[in-house]
């Protein structure tokens, strides 16, 4: 008996240390391929804002918005089911840490694409295609009578902590030598709450965000956007650096919605187009795009029919835009820069070849 205990002791000790060893090794396993991990999990975990109408917010208990649609499109491509997404609501200060620590797979939270966020020596992120070309704006109460940035001299401006707008604000006002005081809050709720309570003469953010938040104000018409655009804000989904498989899958899922608009494929006519492609072997471009022939899906680690899956779930880019932030929504934003390049906009998909 005693001998047995003696022999068992090292085994017990080793077993006690096992969980530790497991936790060390587990993370590197995920590093080998986040895409594989998502597939194995059967669900995509997506970081969103959750409180921004048009981009990501809850409508009758369901997440909707253009940022949400990006996640749904990827889930549709992977699982043929746009509901297989778990959404995590993040503040702008939390978002990059959540992504870097692996708490979320994809960050789709109206995030501006910048050099320092992309660079390995900076935030070390990997940006997907820009889904909304935006610019920073400033909103003031109509009653204040302020009509330009100069009118804000010596005033207080509310801004959200940890955003590019915070930096642009400092740069623009410094260039024009306009003195001002920034009051920074951790969340959008606090920022707009303080603005509505009159703490600040103005609030600044991306113009789309200001337009979106305005719709949820008690009296939306009492606030106006100043004409000045302070910066370029290309917004898009983000993944962590050094994981090309996931970044590429995300990139081409988003491009698929843009290419579909260029090719005139919509959620409505998708079935006809698919039948047309199957029946006509001479339609090589369409056949490859819709996965009737070729290996695009396989090369990306996605199913062969990922494009039709995505389009059935969220429609093409134009449909996504109009439904969430355009004429089909409360925001009624003009497509502006976000028109397809064929209409003089910036939305352009590299070729599916």
């Amino acid at each position, binding site marked *: 008996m005693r001998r047995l205990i003696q022999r068992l002791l090292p085994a017990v000790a080793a077993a006690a240390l096992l969980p530790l060893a497991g*936790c060390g090794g587990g993370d590197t396993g995920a590093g080998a391929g986040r895409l594989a991990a998502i597939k194995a999990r059967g669900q995509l975990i997506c970081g969103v804002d959750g409180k921004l109408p048009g981009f990501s917010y809850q409508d009758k208990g369901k997440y909707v918005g253009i940022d949400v649609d990006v996640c749904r499109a990827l889930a549709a491509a992977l699982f043929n089911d746009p509901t297989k997404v778990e959404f995590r609501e993040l503040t702008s200060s939390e978002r990059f*840490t959540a992504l870097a620590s692996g708490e979320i797979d994809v960050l789709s939270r109206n995030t501006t694409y910048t050099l320092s966020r992309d660079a390995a020596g900076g935030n070390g992120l990997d940006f997907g295609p820009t889904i909304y070309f935006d610019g920073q704006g400033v909103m003031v109460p109509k009653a204040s009578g302020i009509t330009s940035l100069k009118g804000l001299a010596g005033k207080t401006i509310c801004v959200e*902590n940890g955003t590019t707008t915070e*930096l642009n604000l*400092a740069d623009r006002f410094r260039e024009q030598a306009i003195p001002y005081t920034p009051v920074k809050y951790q969340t959008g709720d606090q920022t707009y709450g303080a603005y509505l309570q009159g703490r600040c003469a103005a609030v600044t953010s991306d113009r789309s965000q200001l337009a979106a938040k305005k719709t949820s104000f008690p009296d939306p018409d009492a606030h106006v956007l100043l004409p000045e655009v302070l910066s370029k804000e290309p917004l898009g989904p983000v993944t962590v650096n050094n994981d090309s498989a996931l970044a590429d899958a995300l990139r081409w899922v988003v491009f698929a919605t843009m290419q579909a608009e260029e090719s005139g494929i919509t959620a409505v006519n998708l079935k006809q187009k698919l039948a047309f492609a199957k029946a006509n072997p001479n339609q090589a471009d369409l056949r490859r795009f819709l996965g009737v022939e070729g290996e695009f899906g396989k090369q990306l680690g996605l199913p062969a029919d990922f494009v039709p899956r995505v389009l059935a779930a969220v429609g093409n880019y134009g449909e996504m835009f109009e439904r969430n932030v355009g004429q089909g929504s409360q925001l009624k934003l003009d497509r502006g820069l976000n028109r397809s390049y064929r209409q003089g906009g910036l939305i352009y998909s590299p070729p599916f070849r």
Partner: protein
Amino acid sequence: MSGLPWWRDRRRLGWLIQLAVGLTLLLAIALLLGNLERNLTRAGLRLSFTWLNDPAGFDIAETVLPYTAQSSYAMGLLAGFANTLRVVVSGLVLATLLGVASGAASLSRNPLLAAVVRTYVEVVRNVPLLLQLVFWYFAVFLALPAAPEALRLPGLTLAKGGVFLGAVELVNGELVGNWRLSLELAALLTGLVVYSGAFIAEVVRGGIVSVPKGQWEAAASLGLRPLATLRQVVLPQALRVIVPGLNSQYISLAKNSSLAVAIGYPDLYAVAETTLNQTGRGIEVFLILLTVYLGLDLGISLVMNRIAHLVRIQER
């Protein structure tokens, strides 16, 4: 050596157990560090502090140091720390005054005064501080009237533009005065002082109660009035109980000041959060934060321990 097997040799067993625990601890730390190192390498990040000299590029609403957007991140963090110190130091003084007054008042023979203080202490102690700060900021200070209808108390003017001490003038619809506190600072200070004051009141009350009743009676028999008894007989003896308790309340206050971020006051943590977002240097920023808050609290402890040494009963 005796012929005892190792598991029955107490001395050897003791050593072995210590060795095993030590090794396990080292192994755990090594695993965690290794994990960190691996994950950082995978994400292409390396620990570095050179970014501290880069221009920060963001503005800070209020600062006592000459900080501008062109200053370095290091200067920005320092400006944030100065703001933290401003709140902590004035908070310590005000919370102590409020706490000592309430603690003594809660033992008052005036039932109304005692009841009011007891209610204050119980309500404030049992509501989360974050909630109280948000309440003070959004429900009290942001609800203040605009400058022309400012709330004027003797020596104190309250308006949406800030809290002014001393004389103020109305210039172009805005208040101008020498001593202005921003609403964020005023709300944070009020919240911290009211909250810590309640805890300090309990510490003080406990200290006073710990002084034997005979001391009060002896002082009374010498003809001392109650307030004089408290000041000259009871408090000096109560201090040796009060000071260690105060120490932990002061440390709490210093740490709680980091909740400033919830109400837009640019303290060290708020500046660090912006820095973290602009640079992506999460681990470095948190190392700095940990070091600074640890240093601040150890500093407070050091001073308080000196004071505790001074007020201890000297045997003659």
